[in-house]
């Protein structure tokens, strides 16, 4: 076990887990008897009571849960997260990272490996210690897309205990129609290049050439409101996070302040001592919108609907949408303010707001030695086709996938 990477690891994996798929999870996923701290002092020493549905499903197909990696506080962003390193340092074949605003895709891009965010509501969240319920889902990182596919195939199963799984039929990852060589039209937001730095632009042009070479037609799509994605995510995310984290009071589990004079003081002190600066500022934002500016939250919900409509409209013209995954000069692992956080996730947050599936592909959007990651987003429930597209692009890249 490498404690730089793992918070807690299953002993058996070291000995006899070599031949099966080893999956690292985060300590915000319940694994019976394991610490489930969600990266926060607010859940200090909290032990999961039962297995999350995803854990049970992974074990059902013979996968081993390698352990829980370090994670950002409550899964907000990537500061302190080691899920990607579990793979690149070969302690696991796949890793699950909660994707609230693009964490899985950005972590994968930073390590030059593929990362996948499935459609919202196709993987059970029972057993997830959640933060932003209207967006969060399990993102998957692996060395190859085929491994991502094995994992998503195992965990994309209807769970009647999770009511956010509302689609009538889950995507079938073995459906033959998705296995054939994908082609089609990839849309790019008009003026996208203008928003990029010189290096980002170079990487993007490389990616566009690669997509064209692979047989895709690239068209520009006019989008009116994409600048609003980050604000909408910020307002709704902060409100939901603040609400979700209301239960961390230090009374039944987690850190409890020792020197409080009464109940109210105990709450205030325990919560004050439990949370880090970043998540605390996010909660303050959420509380502000909840109690002082509820109209802003309602507006954000309304605009979210408009953004979804606009995106769906775009998908009537194109099969996929593409962008880079990460930004230059904005390292999600090192952010210290909320605005910095949203800068570093500005390409990935839209798919979290709309709930669409998105795939990060390494080795395509290159500028010199820097891999900015190519992100392909698909329409709702197009997950199998999106993975097939990824496999085909992966194959066509010289030298194949990284690492």
């Amino acid at each position, binding site marked *: 076990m490498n404690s730089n990477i793992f918070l807690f690891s299953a002993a058996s994996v070291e000995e006899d887990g070599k031949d099966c798929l080893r999956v690292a999870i985060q300590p915000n*996923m*319940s694994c019976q008897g394991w610490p*489930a701290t*969600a990266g926060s002092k607010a*859940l200090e020493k*909290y032990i*999961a*009571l*039962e297995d*999350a549905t995803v854990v049970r499903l992974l074990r059902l197909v013979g996968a081993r849960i390698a352990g829980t990696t370090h994670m950002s506080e409550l899964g907000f962003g990537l500061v302190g997260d080691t899920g990607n390193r579990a793979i690149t340092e070969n302690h696991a074949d796949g890793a699950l990272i909660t994707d609230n605003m693009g964490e899985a895709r950005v972590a994968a891009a930073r390590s030059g490996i593929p990362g996948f965010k499935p459609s919202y509501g196709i993987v059970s*969240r*029972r*057993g*997830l*210690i*959640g933060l932003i*319920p*209207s967006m969060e889902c399990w993102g998957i990182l692996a060395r190859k897309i085929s491994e991502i596919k094995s994992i998503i195939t195992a965990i994309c199963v209807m769970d009647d*205990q*999770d*009511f*956010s799984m*509302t689609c009538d039929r889950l995507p079938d990852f073995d459906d033959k129609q998705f296995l054939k060589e994908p082609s089609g039209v990839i849309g790019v937001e008009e003026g996208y290049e203008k928003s990029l730095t010189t290096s980002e632009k170079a990487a993007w042009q490389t990616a566009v050439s690669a997509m064209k070479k692979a047989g895709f037609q690239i068209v520009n799509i006019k989008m009116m409101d994409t600048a609003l994605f980050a604000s909408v995510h910020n307002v709704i995310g902060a*409100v*939901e996070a*603040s*609400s979700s*984290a*209301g*239960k961390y*009071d230090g*009374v*039944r*589990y987690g850190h409890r302040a020792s020197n409080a004079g009464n*109940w109210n003081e105990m*709450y205030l002190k325990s919560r004050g001592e439990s949370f880090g600066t970043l998540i605390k500022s996010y909660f303050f934002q959420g509380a502000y*919108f*909840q*109690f002082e500016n*509820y109209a802003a*939250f309602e507006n954000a*919900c309304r605009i979210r609907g408009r953004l979804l409509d606009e995106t769906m409209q775009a998908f009537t013209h194109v099969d996929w949408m593409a962008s880079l995954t990460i930004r230059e000069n904005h390292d999600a692992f090192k952010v210290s303010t909320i605005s910095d956080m949203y800068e570093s996730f500005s390409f990935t947050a839209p798919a979290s707001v709309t709930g669409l599936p998105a795939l990060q592909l390494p080795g395509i959007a290159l500028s010199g030695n820097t891999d900015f990651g190519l992100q392909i987003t698909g329409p709702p429930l197009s997950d199998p086709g999106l993975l097939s597209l990824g496999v085909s692009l992966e194959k066509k890249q010289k030298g194949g996938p990284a690492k």
Partner: protein
Amino acid sequence: MKYEAVIGLEIHVELNTPTKLFCDCPNRPGDAPNVNICPVCLWLPGALPQLSHEVLEKAVIACLGLSCTVQPESAFDQKVYYYPDLPKGFQLSQHHKPLARNGYLDIFSGSQKPRRLGIHHIHLEEDVAKLLHETEGRTPISLVDFNRAGAPLIEIVTEPDMRSPEEAMEFLKVLRTQIRYTGASECSLEKGSMRVDANISIRPEGTCVLNTKVEVKNMNSIQHVGDAIAYEIKRQAGCLEKNEPVVLHTRLWDHEKQVTSPMRAKFSGPCVPDPAVARIVIDDAWLVEKKAQLPEMPIQKVERFIASYGLKRDEALVMSQERELSDFFEKSVQNYHQPRKAANWITAHLIPALKDQEKSINEVPLIPERFHALLCMQDQDEINANAAREVLLRMLTEDKKPEEIVEERGFRQLSDTGELETVVDRILTDNSSGIQDYKSGNMKVLGFFIGKAMKATRGKANPKILKELFARKLA
């Protein structure tokens, strides 16, 4: 200046389903503290709420019983507030999309003309934990009982249609009866399965303005609700007379002191839609099925009782108040020519006796056939009214026919003229002065003689025959 009150009620009704709203923990008030709990209702990390289908059914039937339009789609919100009775920091409630809207109840408050009072909407929500504050020891402590956390509630929000404490009380009585009929809840303010908050404002009589309201809580009976509203109307009128503004806040009713006192600023927390909870989508076919399950409701039953059995409105109201009792009444009067007599016996004797024993009609051995037989025995002078009352009381505890009890106890009325004549003669002999009084025009003496005769026969004598005998002998 003359003022009129504008009153709206917010009524929480605890549904009597076997399980809680979002988990399968028993919903059983009265159990030992913190036994009916699980990760969901303790809201431990990782747990997901699962909406109970049975709760939804009962809630929908209750909404239909209050003539509401059940919405095709409703959804839950997180109502955010921080208090030790709600350790997850929000209550799951339906703020934006309630289960039902636009209901009403008709009340007859002292008049023959019904007044229709509107229900704005009804929503589902989970109850919070119960806090117990122990203040008697040297160190006051607070305890939390999670048995109630997650219990299913419907909140009925009325239109501000009520104008007096009496109307509010009448509304609550009708509402309680309607919901009890649906079988969704007992609606007992005393036992806490119904809780009422009243919103009260006043305005110059005849105007239509809506002034700042005050919310009053903590009323433990319908009478308390009336008292609290009456007090609050007076208090607010006093404020206006003194030119003090009425401010929006919440007050608590103190039954002992008969006053309301300020508690806190009126709370209105934000409500955030919760995607983790099932959205409720109701299709027409299912709704038709539920409507068919709705029994004949008391409002219709009252009219039918008036029309079919010739009851007066107040009699019909009492007879239809409780579903079980109204069934009892209807079965009792099948093939019985005096339904009003049956109704009056139920009102005057049966209901008070049941109340004394704290039992419902279904919990006693008395069945309608036996009650019917008892009434007939009295009609045919086999027993007198006193004996009939006695037999009725015995039938509440003894599983016997009235004839059996009458025989056992020797209640059968003495109607044998010969036997009674002996008694009458003896009384007249012993009270010769009374005869003189009677003959000199004091008719009251007759009652005195009959009383003597009743005593002598231990209440068994037929008073009609006694009266005839005395009248004849004194003539």
